[in-house]
């Protein structure tokens, strides 16, 4: 198994390296003649009028990426920075996502998380697209994410962009209610040796070794290895739930500035973990991926980027099912400024998956056929039109996708942004987004052998959303504010129908429900002093789901959306004298009424000490207010787990 993986990864690396060598002479030659002039909407004259502080606060871009200040973005985007993560004491990517007030994040047990935006959360939440350095991490089994294998080393993350609301036009299917974009640091920002580690009550032990060095004058690389051992969660009565787990992971990243206009990035990771279960034997997870990216500024007005990756993942859940998945993906994107007013981005993509599920003697579910190969072809085009340059911009675009289940699908959107002054942006958007079928909708059968009481729906089609959004962002000096309001209609939501009513079984999956959601996401960030920052977020959310005429599904969406009506987040950090730092992070989450999960409030706190710039010591308290609390899962469910208070200490040494 491990051997196969290594061989596949090695083959892929040789292939991509070969490709890089082939393309190099061409672009190296051109780069020097064109120089580096990405589109520059602020002239040298305008920049010279700025103060040093303003220059330092200006968002810049190097190659091909179109820079945008957050305050001008015409969508409900929130950014979690490396500093936010470091100060929060978060111990996993999923936990760090709690820092985005526009996400609903609930920890289910020691390894599973329910994460969504704008409702429709669940253990198999399927309306959120998650990308790590451009690699889509959802599983085609249910269009959701296995969070236990998305353990990006937190100190390597540069930022996490969290966009709530449809992002389907640019990002594609599944970006129905949000996109999470995890971006890791450039290798040049992780040079030298880093040793870090620690342990505590819930985080039993963890350690990372990372080393970064130049590999020639324009190439920087890093390599890392890490592992952790996490404690089990608790049963409602306080007993140990026996779901403790450990994972080992290693990887590399290499960035090559082939010229002032071209860049190449090659990165990869391998992981292997075991998660205990209270019965049936350990869950085994393993996998890896290799990503190659190339971008090039073609001229002052246009740039090109290509991206390819291979991902392999293996999961064996004894007593439930097993899966091996291979994903191949290639994307090409070109952006160009046409005339004075048009910024056009278009792209093409192809993805191929090969998914092999295993039905064991004791499996409770089956995906039939057990092995499938599927292909997706995508194309998108988007034009940002400066109706009144720097004041009123209109963006129109559409994604066209072809999938093996439903053929061609179209996901258009239109956005208008208006900047009445220099500090704020008012924006509105109308989008159509689709959640295309995944294996669970069409190919799931339970139990694993006939007679089935539940079967996938052979006619299951895409779930459709029409979303209307209105928002405002403001950034001036030390204050940042954002308000996003939304109303969405859903058609063809997943339902479970009785085949021969009134007989309760068998059941079949169909598109028998419709729904709506509306709400508002408000965030504010304020620097009280140079050393004290406060960040607050509040989300109000309503989701209503109802059966279509003729549907026998009377769940009113309790199987599709399990979210609190409101949540509040407050994060504060302050630098104290003597190189000390203190951060507190409070969250109050309303009840999930269709699961009878009570409302709760929790607090995390972190004390850090940096005696020198080479050494960081921290003491972190997680979920301090209660000995144990529940975040997700019906109270009657046998899989309900409580999350316990935890304390850990950590040391990081850079040199």
């Amino acid at each position: 198994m491990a051997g196969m993986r290594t061989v596949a990864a090695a083959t892929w690396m040789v292939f991509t390296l070969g490709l890089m060598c082939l393309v190099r002479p061409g672009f190296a030659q051109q780069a020097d003649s064109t120089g580096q002039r990405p589109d520059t909407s602020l002239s040298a004259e305008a920049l010279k009028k700025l103060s040093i502080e303003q220059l330092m606060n200006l968002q810049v871009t190097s190659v091909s990426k179109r820079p945008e200040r957050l305050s001008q973005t015409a969508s409900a985007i929130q950014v979690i920075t490396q500093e936010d993560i470091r100060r929060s004491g978060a111990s996993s990517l999923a936990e760090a996502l709690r820092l985005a007030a526009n996400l609903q994040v609930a920890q289910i047990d020691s390894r599973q998380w329910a994460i969504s935006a704008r409702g429709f959360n669940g253990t198999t939440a399927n309306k959120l697209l998650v990308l790590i350095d451009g690699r889509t991490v959802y599983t085609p089994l249910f269009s959701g994410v296995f969070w236990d294998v998305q353990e990006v080393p937190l100190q390597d993350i540069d930022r996490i962009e969290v966009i709530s609301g449809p992002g389907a036009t640019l990002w594609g299917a599944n970006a129905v209610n949000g996109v999470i974009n995890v971006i890791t640091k450039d290798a040049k920002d992780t040079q030298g040796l880093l040793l870090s580690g620690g342990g505590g009550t819930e985080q039993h032990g963890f350690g990372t070794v990372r080393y970064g060095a130049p590999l020639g004058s324009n190439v920087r690389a890093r390599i890392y290895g890490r592992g952790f051992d996490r404690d089990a969660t608790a049963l409602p009565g306080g007993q140990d739930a026996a779901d403790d787990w450990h994972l080992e992971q290693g990887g590399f990243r290499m960035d090559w500035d082939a010229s002032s206009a071209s860049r190449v990035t090659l990165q990869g990771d391998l992981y292997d973990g075991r998660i205990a279960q209270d019965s049936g034997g350990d869950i085994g997870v393993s996998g890896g991926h290799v990503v190659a990216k190339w971008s090039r500024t073609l001229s002052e007005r246009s740039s090109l980027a290509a991206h390819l990756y291979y991902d392999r993942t293996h999961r064996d859940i004894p007593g439930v099912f097993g899966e091996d998945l291979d994903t191949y993906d290639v994307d090409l994107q070109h952006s160009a400024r046409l005339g004075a007013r048009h910024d056009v981005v278009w792209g093409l993509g192809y993805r191929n998956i090969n998914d092999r599920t295993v039905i064991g003697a004791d499996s409770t579910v089956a995906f039939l056929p057990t092995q499938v190969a599927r292909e997706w072809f995508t194309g998108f085009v988007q034009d940002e039109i400066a109706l009144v340059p720097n004041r009123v911009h209109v963006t129109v675009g559409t994604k066209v996708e072809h999938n093996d289940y439903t053929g061609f699908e179209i996901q258009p959107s239109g956005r208008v942004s208006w900047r009445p002054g220099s500090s704020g942006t008012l924006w509105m958007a109308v989008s159509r987004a689709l959640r295309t079928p995944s294996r669970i909708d069409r190919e799931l059968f339970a139990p694993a052998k006939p007679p089935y009481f539940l079967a996938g729906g052979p006619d299951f089609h895409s779930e459709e959303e029409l979303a209307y959004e209105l928002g405002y962002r403001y950034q001036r000096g030390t204050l940042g504010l954002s308000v996003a309001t939304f109303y969405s209609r859903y058609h063809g939501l997943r339902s479970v129908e009785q085949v021969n009513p009134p007989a309760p079984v068998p059941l079949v999956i169909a598109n028998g429900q419709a729904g709506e959601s509306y709400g508002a996401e408000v965030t504010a960030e304020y620097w009280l002093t140079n050393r004290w920052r406060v960040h607050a977020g509040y989300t109000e959310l309503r989701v209503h789901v109802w059966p279509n005429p003729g549907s026998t599904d009377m769940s009113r969406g309790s199987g599709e959306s399990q979210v609190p009506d409101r949540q509040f987040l407050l994060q504060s950090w302050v630098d104290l004298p003597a190189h000390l730092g203190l951060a507190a992070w409070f969250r109050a989450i309303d009840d999930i009424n269709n699961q009878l999960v009570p409302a709760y409030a929790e607090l995390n706190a972190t004390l850090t000490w940096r005696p020198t710039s080479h050494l960081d010591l921290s003491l972190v308290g997680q979920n301090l207010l209660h000995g144990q609390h529940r975040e997700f899962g019906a109270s009657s469910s046998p899989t309900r787990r409580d999350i316990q208070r935890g304390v850990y200490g950590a040391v990081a040494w850079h040199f």
Partner: protein
Amino acid sequence: MALLRVTTALLLVCAARLGAQTGKASEAQVKAVFLFNFAQFVDWPADAVPDSQAPLVIGILGGDPFGDLLDATVRGEHRGARPFVVHRYQRLEDITRCDILFISRSVADQPDEVLTRLKNRPILTVSDADQFAERGGMIRFVTDRSRIRLQINQEAAEAAHLTISSKLLRVAEVVTPTGR
């Protein structure tokens, strides 16, 4: 929801009345403007300036990441009576008189030799190379989360008898040499 609408409307009114420069720019462009600005925040020793109208020279050593951006930035500009000029150098030996020297990454990755030979000359050395300030350079551009920060090695500047204004030091990270 009503409260939200009122808040939004209020914010809009406030925002419409405010005005300042914001926008976006390429990394090279912003660095070029920084180089130009440094001339306002640094004082050179009197004996380094031949006369009050001598050109203020911004040099680029090694590969030029700016194209014509730096030239466009300083075109027609003066510091007092001194006009700005941009010179490009392939080799260290080519540098005759220079006030601000941007050392390109290709050269600055091995900065020890360059910096040793420039040591104590009244030239403000700037680069975006790793560890540049720790290894004896004066100002390093650090691109961090798409923003440019400055690291300043004040000891190196003082050794060359350059005075860096506290206005610049205040917004920069002051680093000390590692003694390498």
